[in-house]
């Protein structure tokens, strides 16, 4: 999976879970402030990413602020397979 593929997966899941226009899901978009995500949304995102990539550490999304932060986390965690 390329870095672009990772970003695409994250963006698609964000748009689907947060029920927002995919065009708003830019790397700079703030999950809570811009896209109105809450703790349940992040829990859903965590499960969705695990469904795709297998188990992730519990704290994976605890300190992410933007969509770009999620993509960066995923890149690090999937480093071995990219």
């Amino acid at each position, binding site marked *: 999976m390329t870095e672009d593929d990772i970003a695409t997966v994250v963006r698609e899941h964000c748009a689907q879970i*947060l*029920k927002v226009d995919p065009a708003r899901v830019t790397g700079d978009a703030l999950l809570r402030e811009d896209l109105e995500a809450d703790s349940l949304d992040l829990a*859903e995102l*965590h499960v969705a990413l695990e469904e795709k990539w297998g188990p992730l550490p519990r704290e994976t999304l605890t300190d992410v602020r933007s969509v770009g932060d999620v993509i960066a986390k995923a890149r690090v965690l999937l480093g071995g397979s990219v």
Partner: protein
Amino acid sequence: MSQSAVRVAVTGLGVRTPAGAHPKELWDTLLAGRSTARAITSFDTEGLGVGFACQVEGLDVEAYVSAKQASRLDRMSQLALCAATDALCDAGALRAPAERRGVVTGTCFGGRTTDEAAMLGGRHLERGAPGPLTVPMAMHNSAAAAISIHHGLRGPSLSVETACASGSHAIGEAGRMVRGGFADVVVAGGAEACITPAVLLGFRRCQVLSQRNEAPERASRPFDRDRDGFVLAEGAAFVVLESFEHAVRRGAHVYAELTGYGSTSDGHHLTAPSPEGEGAARCMRAALADAGLAAEEIVHVSAHGTGTPLNDLTEAQAIDRVFGAARVPVTSVKGVIGHAIAAAGAIEAVAAVLGLRARAVPPTANLDHVDPRCDVDVVGRVRSVPSGPVLSNSFGFGGHNATLIFSPC
């Protein structure tokens, strides 16, 4: 409830039923006396033994909440939120502070669609595939929570569960909250969305469902000689209850007064009613005593009347024990709308209030030949009655009985 210093006014009504999404639409359909049972098309019913139900078409939840908010509500809570919101809008602007406003809901199956999707899905048969939203959407208090959150009700909010009597118990308990001074305004009712393959099969195997698959519209036939069980339904109904003082102070339109509430248990059997309806009769008497009314003063009884052979016979015996020579007119709207389980009592409470206002008794649909063993005056055609109190019964599996009495004011 006139025994207390605080009288309880009904000032708002809201419904989502197979017979309509507005009280007037519901009332007109009830008066027409035509069943709303139809073949189920939302899932494959092959092999379930029953292929029809009374369903709510075109639920308009996204007119009330955003798509994302709606996606966090099971269909049961969506039905509840729509009906409760309508009831609150109907009641108009409230004056009581948020801390004096409450909600009581009744449900039997909770967020059943969510539950089944989670439990029956996934790769592991023994785990299902629950997501982060499964628990908060399936929990049985989810409708009370949704209504409290959406409307900022910060007084008591809770859910009661007494199977098919839940909706009536919710309204009765809410009335006690108002009467007891624990809240000034309570929106109360019931909601159910349990038309799923597993619930349908479970009820069928319990031998309580009509299996008249060749003629669904003739299947729900309370008190009829040829009845063979109830027709599963879904829906929600809510009423706004408030103290008369609060209602008068804000110039509210008052539909009726909740004057009586009875709550008893058979203490007898998991599903069968107590012999000759002893628990049901005691419940009706308790409600009459609560209202300070004599049996002769009731102008009509909205029966639980499910259309199962045993319920209708036993309820008729109970009504006869309480009313005897008074020969009160009895009707069951389940002939038209089926049995919406926990929502049934709440829908029937709304129907009772509408009947009281119209001074009319809606007909029991499909009443071709009254069961000669049911020695009560079952209404088969619309009947005019004098202005007066209406009594509504609900009985649940487990022997839970609830009776509400609404009076003109």
